[in-house]
């Protein structure tokens, strides 16, 4: 017995049919469409190859590689959270503002101790992560329980978090980050690699494993794919959505702390575009703004494309404004592709 619309070649009744007998070979274009990460990885490699050929010495110099890696690492941490949020068919515009808020709260807490003890940086980290988590909790509760749309909720919390950060500092950047943070994390190296890059790598790896291999990750896809269906399958959807925004907040908190370490001061006005950059990276990486689709490795490639373009264009002597143009075009291509993929599905 078969339940299949295309079973005219299997007419044997009462005989369980072979399951994979008619597996059609997928054409290359279909496979590329099914795996947009492949395409973005390909683009990244092509871009790197072009710059390497045009200016091998400068592009592949230690300092340029290091700068690109650090730049990408900072963005990657925000993009990790954004990947979860977008797969769950949400959006988080507040990440840049929460980053700023967390770094301000963290620095104020560390300065308030008036101490140089070794536990002060730990306190700073805790305050930073907790601030981020709190903002994520607020976002998540308003979205999941009060059923407001993510766009508006996070737009509002973006304004509030940034405004509060400015109020707490009087609008001027604070300095006085403990030296130990700057030396050990900000400019620190471990086995020749910048500590910030190592932190980002470990963090991304853990978040990626959780997304792709655990129940939590699976439920993230399920919620983004069919929220009602997930509910009927017994998934605690509201709680899951709240925890996803908390994750995004914690990512922003961690990024805020790393910013302090990197610049040894707060950087209040430097993160206005972080939210859009993170969203760009995630979408470039093959995630769909409709939810249910995306991957952590895709996001990683998506983070690198703008960074590599920016640095490479300067090195080959083109105005770096071309980077914005190029990223915009690639982003459009990614969204068009997602649209096309959705249309071409049978429904």
């Amino acid at each position, binding site marked *: *017995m*078969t*339940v*299949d*619309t*295309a*079973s005219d070649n*299997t007419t044997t009744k*009462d005989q*369980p*049919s072979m*399951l*994979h007998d*008619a*597996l*059609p070979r997928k054409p290359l274009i279909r496979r590329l469409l*099914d795996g947009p990460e492949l395409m973005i990885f390909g683009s990244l490699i092509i871009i790197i190859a072009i710059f390497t050929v045009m200016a091998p010495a400068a592009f592949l110099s230690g300092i340029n590689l290091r700068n690109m890696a650090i730049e990408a690492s900072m963005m990657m941490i925000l993009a990790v959270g954004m990947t979860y949020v977008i797969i769950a068919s949400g959006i988080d515009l507040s990440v840049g503002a929460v980053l700023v808020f967390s770094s301000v709260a963290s620095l104020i807490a560390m300065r308030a101790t008036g101490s140089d003890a070794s536990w002060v940086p730990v306190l700073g980290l805790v305050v930073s992560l907790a601030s981020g988590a709190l903002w994520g909790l607020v976002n998540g509760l308003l979205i999941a329980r009060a059923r407001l749309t993510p766009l508006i909720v996070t737009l509002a919390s973006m304004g509030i978090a940034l405004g509060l950060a400015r109020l707490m500092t009087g609008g001027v950047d604070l300095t006085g980050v403990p030296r130990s943070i700057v030396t050990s994390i900000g400019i620190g190296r471990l086995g020749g690699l910048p500590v910030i890059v190592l932190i980002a790598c470990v963090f991304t790896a853990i978040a990626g494993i*959780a997304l792709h*291999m*655990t*129940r*939590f990750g*699976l439920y993230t*896809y*399920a919620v*983004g*794919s*069919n929220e*009602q*269906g*997930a*509910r*009927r*399958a*017994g*998934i605690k959807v509201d709680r899951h959505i709240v925890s996803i925004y908390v994750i995004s907040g914690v990512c922003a908190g961690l990024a805020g702390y790393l910013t302090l370490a990197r610049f040894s001061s707060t950087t209040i006005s430097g993160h206005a575009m972080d939210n859009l950059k993170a969203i760009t990276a995630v979408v470039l990486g093959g995630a769909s703004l409709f*939810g*249910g*689709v995306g991957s952590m490795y895709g996001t990683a490639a998506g983070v690198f494309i703008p960074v590599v373009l920016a640095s490479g264009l300067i090195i080959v002597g083109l105005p770096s404004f071309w980077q914005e143009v190029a990223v915009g075009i690639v982003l459009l291509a990614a969204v068009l592709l997602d649209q096309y993929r959705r249309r071409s*599905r*049978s*429904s």
Partner: protein
Amino acid sequence: MTTPILSARNIEKSFGQVRAMQGASFDVDEGEIVALIGDNGAGKSTLTKILSGVLQPDSGEILIDGKPVHFDSPLDARTHGIETVYQDLSLAVDLNAVQNLYLGREISAPGLMGRLGFLDKKLMRRRAQESFTRLGVRVPDLRAAVANFSGGQRQGIAVARALMWAQRVVFMDEPTAALGVAQTRNVLDLIRRVRDNGISVVLISHSMPDVLAVSDRVTVLRHGRRVATYATGAVTSDELVAAMTGALEREGASA
């Protein structure tokens, strides 16, 4: 007369101004196929959702083996062995067939990994494969997102999911709506086999020939109320249509 394994008594349910259920009652006996029929908007899907724990009635009673129960969520209905093929199938289309089959009931990896939230994908795939084979449901590619499949193939997956887990009652809300003639016959065969294994099936369908071919009893809903119940052998298609359209009003002409 035996106690029904699942009954609804005087169920009322309103959506704002719309009174979808107006005192509906419904019974399912052990090991039978009950067809639930009625015009569009009669309340078949709403009753199904109430008896699957998706919706909570405004008033009325649900009984299992004659004892009152309360379904706060689909999980409550499930723990009583009730599974449902929803009219919209309720699949997560970006997940593959195995993930859909096990959604909400994944098998954890053994040991510490399992406690960390890791899943035993291999075992689930093997068991899913076995279930699909046993039920004769063809899935072109176990690793591909369900979104790539045809409407009929998706329906097959939703049916397989419900049948795989059902212990006592399966609700099927128009499970053959997207299927061709041959595939519909296969699902009807499947329904009979399930019944022969002692699991009751509630079949919702607009196709009178299918209803008459497969069911043991037919219950007719109209305007959120049960207007008639017949033993299938003692009723004609015309009589059913008359009851659905209100040409005939009688409650409880039960078998």
